[in-house]
């Protein structure tokens, strides 16, 4: 006999459950947690190198890539702990992947935990990892129309960091348009114009991080 069974459950329910557990663990440890999301090559790791030089042992990073440990190596060399998740094909990090590597970090002195997601503007935006906020990076070389073309991420990002602004003289990028579009998608968004190469805009970013911290 045929029978209909109500399920009414999100496909993300398993991930959301683990993310909620992560969030509790992070809060108990007094960590501020960022989930850094952007396309590949927008400058996430360079930003983390600059932050590692500033925060040293007070910051730790869980970094995700399809393959290789280049990113973790760079962040460690710049002065912060880092562990590398290699997903071997999966295009985003999940809450369980983060949970499973958390034990590899010594978190006693750490105030700021940054999860560097796989370089991808689409999939990582819908996976909650237990972070306090999502931060989107957008480099001027990618084009100013990206926020509207990939709204799923920019709807959810509390902060947007425009990177590589030292390249503005060489590319057609309308900063005002990108900023306005980000505000349309999320009126509460904090928008930072930065260059890790020249250091421009970094103090504003550090100031914002300080306002988030709870330890």
């Amino acid at each position, binding site marked *: 006999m045929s*029978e209909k069974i109500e*399920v*009414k459950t999100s*496909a*993300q329910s398993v991930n959301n459950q683990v993310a909620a557990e992560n969030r509790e663990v992070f809060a108990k440890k007094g960590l501020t947690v960022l989930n850094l999301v952007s396309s590949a090559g927008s400058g996430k790791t360079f930003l983390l190198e600059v932050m590692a030089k500033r925060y040293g042992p007070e910051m730790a990073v869980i970094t995700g890539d399809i393959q290789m440990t280049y990113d973790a190596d760079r962040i460690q060399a710049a002065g912060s702990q880092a562990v590398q998740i290699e997903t071997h094909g999966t295009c985003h990090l*999940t809450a369980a992947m983060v949970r499973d590597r958390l034990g590899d970090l010594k978190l006693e002195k750490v105030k700021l935990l940054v999860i560097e997601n796989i370089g991808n503007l689409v999939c990582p935006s819908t996976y909650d990892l237990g972070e306090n906020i999502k931060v989107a990076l957008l480099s001027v070389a990618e084009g100013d129309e990206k926020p*509207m073309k990939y709204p*799923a991420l920019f709807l959810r990002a509390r902060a947007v960091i425009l990177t590589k602004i030292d390249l503005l003289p060489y590319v057609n990028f309308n900063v005002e348009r990108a900023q306005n579009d980000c505000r349309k*998608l999320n009126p509460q968004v904090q928008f930072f114009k930065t260059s890790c190469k020249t250091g421009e805009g970094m103090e504003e970013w550090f100031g914002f991080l300080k306002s988030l911290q709870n330890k």
Partner: protein
Amino acid sequence: MTVDFLLWLTTPMHEYSVALNIADLVLQHSQGKRIEKVNLSIGDMSGVFYDSLTMYLQLILDEKGHKNVMLEAKFIPATFVCACGKEYTTSKMAEGCPACAGYDRKIIAGKDCQVESIEVNDE
């Protein structure tokens, strides 16, 4: 085609992991009976692409012994409520509220991909 072969052939899209989660949910709820149909709802802002999701889900269910399961998905448009109180549905994020043209809005539907129900048969 098997799931393993497909994963060898291509880099899995994130619909693969969504499909794995859905297959788990469906199997948990099936009470060991044969699954005939899965009813899904896919939000416009869920980031899930229907064709990829159903391709993976069909293969995964097939390998779990549930052949020829019918998959049906209802598309859920993105619905917003504006600070002015207006509720509206749009897929054009660049356009503001149809009443006040503002952008101070909250998304209230269309963010999720959900298993609504399943149809099983014990014969």
